[in-house]
């Protein structure tokens, strides 16, 4: 019974990967084909080298790209749920499960932000990132579905890990945007943006957006750390013990706190703020990858 659900989960996740791949190609097509080569009559008027952006002919590709992203989200969601059913618990017991749930949270953050902001240009990066995460999860991190070790059997698993995964998804989205900011900024320093980059938002918008994402999710991350401390108190007999995972969660917290202070109080904007944002986000990634795989300490369970 539970093995059947584990297989169903795997099929959903493979399907999600296929659909994300389609979304990736649709985004790539849109980005590439929207650039229009100069036409002959334009050439005669002197604008020989001017390429233009024309979205009318890629409108369909764009719609397909977003639709595939939503479909991928639904399939991945089903895969995560099925994984949970197969193990009779929330699917957050090992790194494979964190990765598929994290990819879900990341797509969710993107789709949520897409409703409010014109972020479709980010879809290409999002689909690549999700495909890489899922690919690594399936190829390297896969573990058979199994029950939890006693220390993980707690309501706090749902609360603490859920808060941490959502925070991670949003932090990474903010990181992608800060990275895009730095790239476009260096491009603008050399001259006007190349054609494909013209559709991307202005630097100010990117700057504000990554700040808002961080400010929005920082309280949730604080909550994730505190919920972890409460859980640690009931499972391990102390609420804070400088376990490597705890230490890096603290470092991430400090780095984002510094980022928020730098922006709100000292007025950092632009490049410096983007670098600080990238630094803070990379401490989160380091915690997830390095501490889980190479680290010692109490957060290492069931192999990975």
């Amino acid at each position: 019974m539970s093995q059947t659900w584990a297989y169903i989960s795997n099929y959903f996740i493979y399907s999600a990967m296929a659909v994300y791949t389609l979304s990736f190609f649709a985004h790539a097509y849109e980005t590439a084909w929207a650039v229009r080569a100069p036409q002959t009559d334009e050439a005669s008027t002197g604008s020989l080298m001017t390429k233009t952006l024309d979205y009318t002919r890629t409108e369909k590709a764009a719609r397909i790209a977003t639709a595939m992203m939503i479909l991928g989200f639904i399939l991945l969601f089903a895969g995560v749920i099925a994984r949970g059913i197969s193990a009779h618990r929330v699917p957050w017991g090992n790194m494979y499960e964190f990765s598929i749930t994290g990819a879900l949270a990341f797509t969710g953050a993107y789709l949520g932000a897409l409703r409010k902001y014109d972020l479709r240009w980010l879809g290409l990066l999002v689909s690549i990132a999700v495909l890489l995460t899922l690919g690594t999860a399936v190829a390297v991190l896969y573990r058979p579905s199994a029950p939890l070790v006693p220390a993980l059997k707690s309501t706090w698993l749902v609360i603490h890990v859920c808060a941490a995964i959502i925070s991670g998804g949003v932090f990474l989205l903010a990181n992608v945007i800060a990275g895009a900011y730095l790239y476009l900024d260096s491009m603008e320093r050399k001259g006007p943006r190349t054609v494909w980059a013209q559709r991307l938002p202005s630097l100010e918008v990117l700057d504000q957006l990554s700040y808002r994402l961080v400010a929005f999710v920082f309280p949730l991350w604080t909550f994730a750390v505190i919920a972890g401390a409460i859980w640690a108190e009931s499972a391990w007999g102390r609420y804070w013990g400088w376990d490597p995972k705890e230490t890096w969660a603290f470092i991430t917290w400090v780095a984002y706190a510094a980022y928020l202070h730098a922006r709100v109080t000292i007025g950092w904007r632009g490049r410096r703020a983007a670098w600080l944002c990238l630094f803070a986000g990379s401490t989160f990634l380091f915690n997830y990858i390095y501490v889980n795989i190479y680290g010692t300490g109490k957060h290492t369970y069931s192999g990975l």
Partner: protein
Amino acid sequence: MSQEIDLPELGATGLLRYSWRQLTSMRTALILLMMLGIAAIPGSLIPQRDQNPMKVTQYFTDSPTLALWMDRVSLFDVYGSPWFSAIYILLFISLIGCVLPRSVEHFHAARALPPKTPKNLERMEFYSIWDSQGDEIEKAQSLLKSSRFRILMDKDGISAEKGFTRETGNLFFHLSLILILIGVGFGSLFGMRGEAIVNVGERFINVPTTYDSLTFGKLLSEKDLPPFVITVDKFVAKYNTLTNAPEDYTLNVSVVENPGEPSIKKIVKVNSPLKFGSTNVYLQANGYSPIVTVRDSDGNVALQGPVPFLPQDGNLRSIGAIKVPDADPQIGFVATFLPTQARDSVRGGISVFPEALDPKMLFSIWRGDLGVNAGIPQSVYRIDTSKMERIGLESLKPGESYSYDGGSITFEGFVPWVNLQVVRDPGKNYALLGGIVAILGLLASLFTRRRRIWIRITESGKVEVAGLAKNAAPGLEVEIAKLVTLLKGEK
């Protein structure tokens, strides 16, 4: 001479004031915050003494000189080191120096009325002007009051302000960090922490001698231990047959909280400790204690009972030492307990499952000087065999005996043991309160906007509306547009 003394005196006060200003400046606080983050890194990459003492010892064996120097700069004890403490103490002084004056200032500001309407409203943000119909001021007053603005009635208009919660939340957030630090400090001064291995069937009496390890906070002493007694009745571990991983540990105990009181049956699990006031008892680890009887050549019992063995892997292959110091010459057994035995061509005897399905004990017998009388503390799981000679090698199943030159050993069976961790931390509730206030303060400060709105009727009979958003917070434009529509009366 006097001049030379005078100058530094004046300078000293100035220097102090200057240093204090520097320390409590935002920039310094921010640098200290980043330094704290960076200073925390080495402790997560280098093994720490209180988490992983074995690995620290390994460092000392592998490269003694390097380890010695690392130890001198507290790299094996980062979070208790002088430099780490220096950073967070400076940070907290800076924080207090920054937050307390701001709290006082904010307290006064929150009780004061909004400032008067500026003369030239058209220079402010989101300015609009139209012909008055006479009742705009009254309308605006009730509208702003109902959306909980603080209002100052000028002679020709209204000055309204909202969003003090932002600074209130901000201050509460920072004050709560101080509360967390107080909680941590209080816990370490008045707390205690100890561990004891207890065999199933045995009693744990909460006195210092029962503990295998015990540390007290500076302001707590041995007589503050609550006088409870725990009898370990039964311990059941369930394991997954596919992954061998543990699925559930259940510990049944009988508890006498105070002497003379009746004993109460309780269940302890990993995530639900026993509670005695601010003292908690946690189920931390478990293993097996083989029960052995050692007899001398005349058949007299030299040692009998369960001996706790230390698990080495997930399948609970456990090592231990059975020491018979009263025998003459002394006898020791260097032993391995395999709950579900199997043979591996490379590693020899291994365990393939953590539950005791097919238990076996392998041991070598040593005769000579155990070294237990030398006064040097020894591991109970190991034997220093440097002054001993090996006189036998055997493996036994439960119920079997083995005779050697000078005596015999019987492997009677086994019982599980549990490691009870006893922790008293009276500061944790303050830290928790601090954590809760920190989140609430953070939410208040990140999601409220401070802004001002002014409405005025000019001498020429026009209505002017304008606003000002602090920190360029978005949303005021919409708010003012809505207000203007309402004031114009849906025209």
